[in-house]
């Protein structure tokens, strides 16, 4: 490798890192949290959804006809055009139901599998929380910026930057194997920081690369929407034409005559016999029409690949109309999607994903701090404009992001314990953004090390406060129980305590490092 090539890759590595570091930090942090989104959902709902939580709610034991049907009939009478629902499973013991109202708007709700009623609207209006799956998860892939696909495209650009950062990082890092075993705990904070950057990068390199590539592949319809333009000559909707063929979709137009709905349980039994696997999702199109179609999708927890296998039924008679057959390359795409979403039933793997995601966060944060430290002196001497801002953004996107996340969870508990009049989702997301903004303002007003230490102290407090508030205000669900449903919630509490502990440790480590370097000018940063 020529020196020239390595030098250019070094330049690219630092520039792409500075430009996309904050964004990547947000994406990887939110992605890591999303691995346990259902558990965090349950933690956040522990004061409202207690009745639904037990093993009878597993899909095999729930009759669609007796539980869902009355609710559906009510919606159809009100003019709903289509509806769909995922079935309850171990991690999500309720129906995640959606329907399209007569005015075209899509509404989603959680349905209690025992009573067939929406969960979360009892007692208080606006009591429904977005949870982790409605806030952290969309934050992960579109930053909750929906304007003209801005969020999606920013995340896509960051993902390409991440791939470039990984390639250039490997080129920059000369002794990739030799230095892998090198961790100089006795040296300066700066040396430590670089060793930690190298260790987290190399240790999880396959993960960093594959999770980023598969993330791009998940959204290929957004990032490279017109690849099919030469193959499918229908210019208006090349992607639609592609997807209909690739997913082997069955569609038929509405007839205009009214029609009924046969037994959903019977259709489910037929679909399950066809795959020898469980149904995970149902949907009805052209609701109320004689040509209405019931779509049953195979569950995704059984294998690595995220399948899109479907069986279609005539809604009126319950006759099987069509079963999909997905071709090999599309199955490869579904494999990448499954690899990214990690929805398979495998707890050790889920923890491995979470740990690797956190390693990505460590890699990004340490890279950032390394860049800042190597440049601080030069930039201070030359008074480079904006350097303080970059420092503040770095703090806001590392410790500030953690603090905002904890703020979201603490707001959730404060809402449960008090009589706040605002809708719950607004109160919680407001807490998140307010704390994030405060962390940025806080970091703008003081040196990097001081801002970091103070925010780490705040993280310790918030990490202790959240489980405490949960214990105080858990409502009926906080009554002791050692079932599977309680393990997830307990795990979230343990995780929060873990965050507090790590922040405590990092704070102490930073203080001693700063003291150390203040005594030895010229060493390290």
């Amino acid at each position, binding site marked *: 490798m020529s020196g020239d090539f390595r030098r250019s*890759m070094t330049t690219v590595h630092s520039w792409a890192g500075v430009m996309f570091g904050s964004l990547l930090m947000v994406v990887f942090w939110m992605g890591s949290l999303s691995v346990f989104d259902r558990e965090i959902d349950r933690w956040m709902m522990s004061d409202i959804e207690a009745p639904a939580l037990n093993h009878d709610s597993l899909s095999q034991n729930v009759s669609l006809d007796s539980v869902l049907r009355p609710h559906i009939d009510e919606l159809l009478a009100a003019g709903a055009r289509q509806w769909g629902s995922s079935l309850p499973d171990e991690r999500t013991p309720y129906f995640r139901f959606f329907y399209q109202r007569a005015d075209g708007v899509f509404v989603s709700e959680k349905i209690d599998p025992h009573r067939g009623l929406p969960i979360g609207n009892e007692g208080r209006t606006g009591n429904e929380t977005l949870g982790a799956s409605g806030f952290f998860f969309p934050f992960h892939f579109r930053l909750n910026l929906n304007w003209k696909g801005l969020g999606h495209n920013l995340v896509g650009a960051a993902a390409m930057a991440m791939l470039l950062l990984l390639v250039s990082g490997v080129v920059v890092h000369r002794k990739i194997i030799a230095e892998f075993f090198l961790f100089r705990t006795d040296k300066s904070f700066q040396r430590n920081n670089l060793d930690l950057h190298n260790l987290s990068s190399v240790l999880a390199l396959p993960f960093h690369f594959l999770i980023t590539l598969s993330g791009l592949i998940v959204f290929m319809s957004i990032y490279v929407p017109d690849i099919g333009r030469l193959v499918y000559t229908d210019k208006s909707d090349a992607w639609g034409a592609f997807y209909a*063929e690739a997913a082997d979709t069955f569609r038929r137009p509405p007839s205009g005559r009214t029609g009924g709905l046969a037994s959903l349980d019977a259709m489910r039994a037929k679909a399950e016999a066809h795959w020898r696997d469980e149904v995970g999702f149902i949907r009805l199109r052209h609701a109320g029409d004689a040509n209405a179609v019931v779509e049953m999708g195979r569950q995704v927890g059984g294998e690595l690949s995220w399948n899109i296998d479907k069986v279609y039924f005539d809604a009126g008679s319950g006759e099987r109309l069509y079963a999909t057959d997905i071709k090999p390359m599309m199955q490869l795409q579904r494999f990448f999607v499954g690899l990214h979403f990690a929805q398979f039933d495998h707890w050790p793997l889920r923890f491995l994903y979470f740990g690797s995601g956190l390693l990505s966060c460590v890699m990004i944060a340490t890279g950032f701090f390394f860049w800042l430290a190597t440049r601080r002196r030069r930039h201070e001497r030359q008074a480079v404009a904006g350097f303080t801002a970059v420092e503040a953004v770095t703090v806001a996107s590392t410790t500030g992001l953690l603090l905002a996340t904890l703020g979201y969870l603490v707001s959730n508990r404060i809402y449960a314990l008090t009589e706040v009049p605002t809708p719950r989702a607004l109160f919680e997301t407001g807490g998140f953004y307010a704390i994030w903004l405060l962390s940025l303002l806080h970091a703008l007003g003081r040196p990097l090390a001081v801002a970091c230490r103070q925010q780490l102290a705040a993280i310790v407090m918030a990490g202790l406060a959240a489980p405490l508030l949960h214990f105080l205000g858990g409502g009926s669900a906080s009554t002791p129980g050692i079932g599977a449903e309680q393990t997830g919630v307990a795990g979230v509490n343990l995780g929060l305590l873990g965050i507090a502990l790590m922040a405590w440790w990092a704070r102490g480590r930073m203080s001693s490092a700063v003291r150390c370097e203040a005594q030895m000018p010229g060493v390290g940063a």
Partner: protein
Amino acid sequence: MMDGMERPTTGSKRVESQRPGLRWARLVRPACATLGGYFLAKLLAMLLGLALAFAGMSESEAVVTASMLSFLLYLSLLVWGFAGGLLWPRLLVLGLLPALLWPLLPYIARTGL
């Protein structure tokens, strides 16, 4: 091009001696690599999809194959674009080539417009 992380203290002289015109010239390479790379990667992927469809792969399979490979194509072009060396080959391949080929796409499409 400025130094990276290897010798952080030696870059100051160069920054100071830079003429204002050169600052803009430094944006040419990143623009070529990111924007030009994106359009060229997509173009190559489109052509690959077309070729696979002609070779007998079913249409949706050709498109999904090309779409998945497009990200790796883009990554390769990014690395090449940002690698050191002469600027003009990058300008030609990443800047000019997609600009020339893009208007021709309707004539290459499978069954014309």
